[in-house]
């Protein structure tokens, strides 16, 4: 294996490991869930991304043919990370945030969607659910 390729792979692994460590250090350093939520994004983008690029380069040089199947993991993580963060924030707000005290008014007929699932025309999803059960 040429020295330059080896240097690039080692550098990518070191960068990835350092960013994973920084991302998890933010989990114990930051004070609340909502600031804490942005710490693992470093781990999932730069950390895991550079590790997977290092893996692609390594197997390209090792096997002699280029494959991009590591990009599947990157693509999947990049697609699912915003959905995960949104759902965790919604679960936190439902359990720990008071919509009357901590949030500004929504200036609409209905409240914020996390706290007020009933729509503006008096549509109650729980009624539909009970009808389906009986």
């Amino acid at each position, binding site marked *: 294996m040429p020295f330059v390729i*080896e*240097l690039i*792979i*080692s*550098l990518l*692994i*070191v960068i*990835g*490991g*350092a960013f*994973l*460590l920084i*991302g*998890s*250090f933010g*989990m*114990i350093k930051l004070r609340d*869930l909502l600031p*804490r*939520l942005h710490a*693992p994004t470093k*781990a*999932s983008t730069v*950390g*895991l991304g550079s*590790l*997977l690029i*290092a*893996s692609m380069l*390594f*197997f390209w040089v*090792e096997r002699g043919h280029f494959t991009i*199947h*590591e990009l*599947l*993991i990157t693509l*999947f*993580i990049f697609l*699912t990370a915003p*959905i*995960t963060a949104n*759902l*965790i*924030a*919604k*679960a*936190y707000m*439902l*359990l*720990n945030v008071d919509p009357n005290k901590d949030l500004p008014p929504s200036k609409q007929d209905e409240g914020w969607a*996390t706290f007020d699932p009933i729509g503006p025309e008096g549509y109650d999803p729980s009624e539909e*659910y009970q009808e389906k059960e009986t």
Partner: protein
Amino acid sequence: MIEYALNFGFVCVALALLMNLYRLTAGPTTADRVLAVDTMAINAIALLVLYGIGKATAMYFEGALLFAMFGFVSTVAYCKFVLRGDIIE
């Protein structure tokens, strides 16, 4: 040189997993614990990728892909359960 970089990466990921474990046990709210498990899944993917490079086999790639998929599904299922009291409505 790759061996030293791999050892550094293993140490970093192990420390990151320990920090996530602390947040999992001491997290004040339920959402903190869910976030800790989600980050642990990402760190486990990184550990599998590093181990695959160290052993020079592509077999661990499938394991990493499975971790990516099931980590996402479990996080979404738990958040949905907290939000709606039910997973499949």
